[in-house]
């Protein structure tokens, strides 16, 4: 990668949400949002991003939160991977997300990188996205005129492309409270876990009722062009017991369903094989967490 000195730009550091949305409106089409910078700054140095205007939202403390009420868990987009991974609430109720944040990068990256940035940059390898897909996350997008809600599953139709308007800001990630008897897990494969981008990752979430799967979510990322849920594998578990046999079948189905990519990190054949293993292992981890 050739790195250059960054092109010049106008730089704003708003201290509240309202003025941020105004800035976005004023400079729409010309402004990029800067959060942690772990993605954006690299793009700026490589001249892959050359916005005339940068809006640094790092001072918007109101976007850094993890809260819950009876129905939902809400996460602010400026929550760093470090905060997410250490949060007792995440570890208790959304452990797949805490695990993904913990492995999202080394310490320095986790202290800067945010979950909002992970979602909006829409990279293939965004580790927090598969767990969030399993958790049925929805996103609140705001602009100066109002707000709208988009399901995470509909936010990024393909890698590096989102439905976020050029005057919109992601302000909240909302997760329905997981029902009782629910467990989740996340795994990633990379040459150096916690350092490299994932070659493949997988997340799963299962709710049991009367010993059978009442809800099943399986998502893979990094191996494919964009993180996705594998409905066929999920359907294979619904109404069935979470046995090793059924897990094996679901994993094989998942591996068969995906269209993995080849790149300098790994071939598509390798990714297909390891995705099967990762899906099996996350389901086994969920089974153990459910007391099985």
């Amino acid at each position: 990668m050739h790195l250059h000195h960054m092109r010049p730009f106008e730089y704003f550091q708003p201290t509240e949400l309202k003025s941020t949305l105004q800035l976005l409106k004023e400079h729409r089409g010309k402004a990029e949002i800067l959060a942690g910078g772990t993605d954006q700054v690299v793009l700026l140095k490589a001249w892959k991003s050359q916005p005339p205007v940068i809006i640094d939202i790092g001072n918007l403390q109101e976007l850094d939160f993890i809260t819950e009420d009876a129905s939902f868990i809400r996460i602010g987009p400026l929550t760093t991977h470090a905060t997410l991974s250490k949060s007792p609430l995440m570890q208790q109720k959304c452990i797949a997300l805490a695990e993904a944040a913990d492995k999202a990068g080394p310490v320095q990256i986790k202290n800067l990188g945010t979950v909002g940035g992970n979602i909006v940059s829409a990279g293939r390898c965004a580790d927090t996205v598969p767990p969030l897909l399993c958790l049925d996350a929805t996103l609140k997008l705001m602009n100066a005129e109002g707000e709208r809600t988009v399901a995470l599953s509909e936010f990024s139709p393909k890698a590096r492309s989102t439905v976020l308007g050029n005057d919109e800001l992601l302000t909240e990630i909302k997760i329905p409270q997981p029902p009782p008897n629910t467990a989740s897990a996340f795994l990633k494969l990379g040459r150096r876990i916690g350092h490299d981008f994932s070659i493949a990752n997988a997340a799963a979430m299962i709710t049991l009722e009367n010993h059978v799967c009442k809800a099943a979510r399986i998502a893979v990322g990094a191996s494919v062009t964009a993180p996705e849920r594998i409905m066929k594998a999920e359907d294979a578990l619904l109404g069935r017991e979470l046995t090793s046999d059924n897990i094996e079948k679901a994993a094989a189905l998942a591996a068969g369903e995906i269209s993995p990519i080849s790149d300098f990190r790994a071939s598509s054949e390798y990714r297909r094989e390891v995705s099967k293993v990762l899906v099996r292992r996350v389901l086994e981890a969920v089974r153990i967490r459910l007391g099985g």
Partner: protein
Amino acid sequence: MIIRFNLNGSPVEATVKCNSTLLEVLRGQFHVTSPKKGCDHGDCGACTVLVNGKPVNSCLVMAPKVQGKDVLTVEALGEPGKLHPLQEAFIETGAAQCGYCTPGVLLSAAALLRDNPKPTLEEVKRSLEGNLCRCTGYVSILKAVMLAAERVGQTSTRRSGP
């Protein structure tokens, strides 16, 4: 724009270009040359500094972001005649060869020991994942951090630092 922040315990100010990074400002304007430009894209950790106590890649921090914050570099960890236990341990185990990664490693390790005074070897490894070293093979570095942890645990008076 003008930025005002605390650098190694002292309030400072500088006029910076918005499109410069903390790394460039520290080295180019403050002549604090301990953080190094290794990869310049957040992979190697040679540029690691502590911002508000947290290890970060200064090559990824836009200069305006440190407004009002505390920035610590390895110069604040210890000095000749008054070395931090980590620095003493590094000398004993031979954990620095070319020394290029060393400032970053020391800061990551110092932050770890501050938050977790009795780390396991695994925890030390994880805390140093973001600091690459091409010379030592890491064994002497890990030994040094474990040795420093043991020693810091044994003394009742704590050195001031990050």
